[in-house]
């Protein structure tokens, strides 16, 4: 306990000293003609640290090493929460791995701003051989200043997963509007079942609800303007409306303020155990919610996009989500080998493995999602993603860190009932002003 803080303070000082002394790496551009030398070590930072996902990269690394005996793939596997801190620690100490995970939006933009990522346009751009193997929207999500920096691995979006047996037992159908869903919650609650399990101990959970509601209530151009602290106003009435809608969901569908004391993983487990009727989740969690090992079986699992309110002023066809992928470090001493490994990872055969259970991560590779091998729910989710008018990026990665922190902490307070919707928006507006 004590040592960890002492160490952390020392790390802050040491990392800052290193950061101060060392200039950021120069922008590097991938050369498609560069020969691959199958020798040396490639370090890879993944977001597949969870027990269910870890074998994917572990097995691929072993397979690649077997094909190329002179190569060692060193994996650093983190989970959704820890990868953020790990990445920043590695960046600050100028030891970022050759290949590293990245979200789209501001998160990925940080690496471009700091010239930490290789410009991959010559190898993954729209007219390149490798680039043509990906869904264009997925590759384009990693475009910054007209250049391609990311290798998309899978597509992700948020849906409301539900238990078909509970819905059938109570005579409920898939809600068309937010008002329908709230009415369904009342029915489920009367039956003594938790309508929606939610764990907001990790505060991004409520932020994900709000992200989708903002896409419904605030016009896209206004959102994009407000995401940039330089032009942010947060004056649109859709912000307060979205918060009030979230409050209605919290009050009528969940355990309310108690959500702040529950982990999202426990909440997900409640749906899997048949103790709740719904859980708002990412498509990459579908195969975790319902599997042969859970009480809720895959055929009993259904999903629908969080329904839009009737009079939504934004875009009711928008869907919250974004592809997630990897970048190549500009400090890498063996960029061609790192790219070769990622080409191997994103081959059609390996993409199909990624899309199928137990991983259930719908690949961004064209033809990499084989419906015959995948869960029907994941296939259906992919169709919804394709039909969405646009993908609303995660609020906590698209915003400036200070603005994201304001959303995270204030929404937790809002869920706990200690602040009003207007106060939340005011705090976010203040954070954006401070971030200018």
């Amino acid at each position, binding site marked *: *306990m004590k040592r*960890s*803080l002492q160490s952390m*303070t020392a790390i*802050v000082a040491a990392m800052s000293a290193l950061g101060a002394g060392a200039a*950021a790496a120069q922008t590097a551009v991938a050369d498609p003609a560069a020969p691959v030398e199958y020798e040396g070590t490639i370090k890879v930072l993944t977001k597949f640290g969870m027990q269910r996902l870890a074998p994917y990269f572990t097995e691929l690394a072993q397979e690649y090493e077997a094909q190329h005996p002179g190569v060692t793939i060193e994996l650093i596997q983190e989970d959704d929460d820890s990868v953020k801190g790990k990445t920043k620690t590695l960046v600050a100490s100028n030891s970022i791995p050759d290949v590293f995970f990245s979200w789209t939006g501001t998160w990925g933009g940080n690496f471009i701003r700091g010239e930490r990522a290789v410009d991959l346009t010559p190898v993954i751009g729209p007219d390149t051989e490798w680039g043509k193997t990906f869904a264009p929207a997925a590759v384009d999500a990693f475009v910054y200043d007209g250049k391609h920096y990311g290798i998309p691995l899978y597509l992700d979006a948020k849906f409301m997963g539900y238990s078909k047996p509970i819905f059938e037992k109570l005579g409920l159908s898939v809600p068309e509007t937010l008002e329908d869903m709230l009415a369904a919650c009342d029915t489920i609650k009367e039956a003594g079942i938790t309508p929606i399990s939610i764990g907001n101990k990790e505060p991004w959970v409520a932020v994900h609800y709000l992200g989708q509601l903002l896409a419904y209530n605030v016009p896209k151009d206004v959102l994009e303007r407000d995401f940039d602290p330089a032009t942010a106003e947060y004056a649109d009435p859709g912000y307060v409306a979205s918060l009030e809608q979230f409050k209605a969901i919290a009050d009528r569908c969940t355990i309310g303020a108690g959500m702040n004391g529950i982990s999202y993983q426990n909440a997900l487990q409640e749906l899997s155990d048949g103790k709740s009727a719904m859980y708002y989740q990412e498509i990459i969690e579908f195969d975790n919610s319902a599997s042969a090992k859970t009480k809720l079986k895959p055929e009993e699992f259904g999903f629908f996009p969080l329904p839009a309110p009737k009079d939504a002023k934004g875009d009711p066809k928008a869907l919250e989500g974004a592809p997630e992928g990897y970048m190549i470090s500009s400090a890498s001493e063996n960029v061609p080998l790192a790219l070769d490994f990622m080409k191997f990872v994103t081959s059609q055969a390996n993409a199909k493995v990624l899309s199928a259970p137990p991983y259930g991560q719908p690949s961004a590779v064209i033809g990499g999602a084989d419906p015959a091998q995948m869960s029907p729910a994941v296939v259906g989710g992919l169709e919804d993603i394709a039909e969405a008018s646009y993908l609303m990026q995660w609020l906590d990665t698209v915003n400036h860190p200070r603005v994201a922190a304001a959303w995270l*902490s204030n929404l937790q307070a809002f869920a706990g009932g200690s602040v009003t919707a207007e106060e939340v928006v005011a705090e976010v507006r203040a954070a954006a002003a401070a971030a200018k």
Partner: protein
Amino acid sequence: MSLSADIGKSGVALGGPALGAGRGPRLRPLLSRLLALRWIAVALVLVGWFVYYPIVDNFFVSTTNQDIFTGEVTQVGLDNYRRLAEDPVVGRALWNNGAYAVLSIVFQVFAAFCLAAIVEGLSSERWRNFWRALYFVPSAISTTVTGLLFYFIYQPDIGILDGLLKALNLEHWSHVWLGDPQTAIYAIIAMSQWQGFGYSTLLFTIAIQKIPQELYDAARMDGAGPLRQLWSITFPLTREMTGMMIIVTVTGAFQVFNEVMVMTGGGPNNSSQVLGTWLYEQGFNQNDMGYAAAIGSVVFAVTMLTGILQLWYTRRRRVLA
């Protein structure tokens, strides 16, 4: 001290006969002392580099704004300290660290002392060993594991604590312990006391065992009862241990990190933030290393002040004795 004095007297140790030859008597001890430094030079360099340099550097970092992605550094003087003074979360964190310190002193110092005295007062050696072991077991579990354990104990509806309250017909007391801003930090502190209590008890047990039995025998012959013996013998003769435990407890309370990170992450709405978690949030999540370093300086100042006060107190007690 004695080594350098001996070297100075002989003029032959380490440096050989030529060491002081032809030099003045004042220069000889100085040279000898400088030569003696080589024996601790490695340790000095290591301590300097890994302990003192980061402390000094941390202060310089706190006068800058740094962007870890670009490596850009901007000098901002004392702006981060001004911002720190106006940051309501820092105030909250200081309060939480303070509450941590006060409650830890109550439970891990005074209550642990009383328990140690009671356990050592037992006549059966077997029972003494049993209670010592029983109280020490929680300390053998890592903080992270304990944090997760108590996270489940505190779970609303399905947690053991709420289940116990329901079983005792005290359902109205059940609570979202970690999800309520009013109770979150105290739920964490309670867990920490559960874990640290046995360790403190063991240390007091060792201190009590060092007290000569003859003192208790003499007190008994003079008609002193158990409470009188506790107050007049045990308490004064464990004063140094008590002082040390207070400084360790207070310093630890201002460096607490793991349990908060595991159980609440500083939430809800920053209500359970302590200086350590707020430092982490600023440095590693908000990319604000300069401000994080300023928070680190506050932690250093508080723990340093505690150490100085304790040294002063201990020295004063020795003089009085």
